């Protein structure tokens, strides 16, 4: 399928690695400089470097805090303005999602611990029982916490939903444009080859 093909970067040559977790400008400048020197910069913070010959993006295991999978984007040397816009949109969306969910999950964990602690204290129990195990509340007792947490974060979620849908549509639309441009370019090249 043409779409599958165009999603794979076709160019060879140098590879600049950009990680999404670091800021875009610093990474790109250091990455660019390192690439010019012929070195491969490390994908800052992610501890993984895709092989040099690979021309596609790489996706990693779920993040500890946000449960989202980080992507290391491939930057082809002949990246067009449209492709750069797409890549930057994806990086921005990834960074924003990462920030939101890491913070949200951390808050959830923390508030849950606090809730369990306060409930156990109210019941007169210790946080850890005799065998050293962490004492837990059953699902019915936790239900109050879940309800409370959901209603507290309702507005935050509404705002996030709006942002996420906007990012998603924008990225998909740009992907469509990039795919179309690449397909047309490929067709034109083929026509030229046939004519020659």
């Amino acid at each position: 399928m043409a779409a599958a093909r165009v999603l794979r970067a076709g160019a060879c040559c140098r590879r600049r690695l950009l990680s999404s977790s670091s800021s875009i400008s610093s990474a790109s400048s250091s990455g660019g400089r390192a690439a010019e020197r012929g070195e491969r910069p490390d994908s800052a913070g992610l501890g993984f470097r895709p092989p040099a010959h690979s021309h596609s993006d790489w996706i990693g295991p779920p993040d500890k805090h946000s449960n989202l999978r980080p992507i290391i984007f491939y930057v082809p040397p002949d990246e067009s303005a449209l492709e750069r816009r797409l890549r930057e949109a994806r990086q921005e969306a990834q960074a924003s999602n990462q920030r939101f969910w890491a913070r949200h999950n951390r808050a959830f964990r923390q508030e849950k611990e606090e809730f369990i602690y306060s409930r156990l204290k109210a019941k007169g129990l210790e946080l850890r029982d005799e065998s050293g195990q962490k004492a837990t509340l059953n699902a019915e007792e936790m239900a109050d916490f879940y309800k409370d947490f959901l209603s507290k974060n309702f507005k935050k979620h509404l705002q996030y939903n709006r942002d996420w849908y906007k990012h998603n549509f924008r990225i998909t639309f740009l992907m469509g444009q990039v795919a179309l441009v690449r397909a047309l370019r490929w067709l034109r090249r083929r026509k030229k080859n046939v004519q020659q």
Partner: protein
Amino acid sequence: MFREETELGKSLEHQKQLGELGGLSLKKRRLRGTCRLFVWHLRNTGVRQIPCRFVHLYHVANNRLITFQYFNFLKRMYVTRCNKDLGQRAKPKSNSIVPPFHELQQLDQEKKVVHKISPVSPVHQSWSETSSRNELREMKSAAETEDSVIPVGAESKEDRRWKEMKLRLDDLPGILARLSKIKLTALVISTTSAGFAMAPVPFELTCFLLASLGTGLASCAANSINQFFEVPFDSNMNRTKNRPLVRGQISPLLAVCFAACCGIPGIALLALGVNPLTGALGAFNIFLYTCCYTPLKRMSIANTWVGAVVGAIPPVMGWTAATGSLDAGALLLGGILYSWQFPHFNALSWGLREDYSRGGYCMMSVTHPGLCRRVALRHCLALIGLSTVAPVLNITTWTFPIISLPINLYISYLGFRFYRDADRSSSRKLFFCSLWHLPMLLLVMFTCKKSVLEKEDKGDLPGGSNEMAMEIRLP
């Protein structure tokens, strides 16, 4: 062995069509009576010895093969929960792994299981040759996160978890099957077939096949768009974190293209090949599911009612495909499916409250637990009422309400228990009952269908048909 592998390989992906109740224990029961619909596997939640585990796994695999022979996707996806549980148990308890997963299982026995996980996981890794790549990945992630200070070995293990985002054509069918939630789609097609079969017209095979295919394509499209919209939320819920878009196996653009390639031909097939009414219903259902239900899930508890309508429309589509008109029988069938959704979903969502709360989903089980249980009970009782209305509308004979009374009473009883006890075990019982209750109800309805020939004699049918009439009469 190969079949085992494919089963295991699919298990993690397909497990969550009907959702997970988060418990560690599964009950093994054989339904007495003529219909042995379910076999599912008993697992002790206590300590497991290593040799026993192999036996146990073999036993599980065997059971799954047996059950696969018996039936349809509906039960298989449910039985394959066994594997998912095993996969979950391989994860050692560690703070870095998604905590809600652990907190979800607040059973006493869990502590013992958690202790046992560390020694078991190396064994699991050696067994993993036969397991899916997914489980291997999960176990590796579990194993390596628990010791962060390891020399070069860990780096390569960590590195191996990074995947190139390159679409391989031989992976594509599996990826698309998961993207379109193929098992749920198959269920939808079967409810459409039920609607078609119940229509009081002679059975036409081509129309039936076109309607089923069109509905299936429409369902694939709707499910793909749903997954496209929900990527970050799916990543954060245990039930859905192995979906293709979450794992980056397919790009969002491709998902949308696939949805368009399924939806447009599907609706065209329904509108042109069957009749425009069915096409319109199909298009409306896609819209309702993707543009109403999916966003509403995060905004208001009304999503459950909208979702129930989404589930009720396919049998109506089957009926209109056969008859070409939206009459009382279609609405009754839709009503039965509508009512069924509530005990099914409300019971399921009872065990997922933590994930819903953290993920930001507005579900009755989290925000209005009393309402959740009341509605489930109410609709269990409504099923009895609707079954009684069926002969009044001349769809079935009077034997239908009588024969279906036991199963309807049983699900109502479980609904009442859920309403009264409001605990995990009653919710699970109700959920599992709903899984076999619907197919049985539809089957009984079909066997009690009012014969078409009878109607022809009475001159009720609009014009004769040359096709063979499909008649079932009870002795």
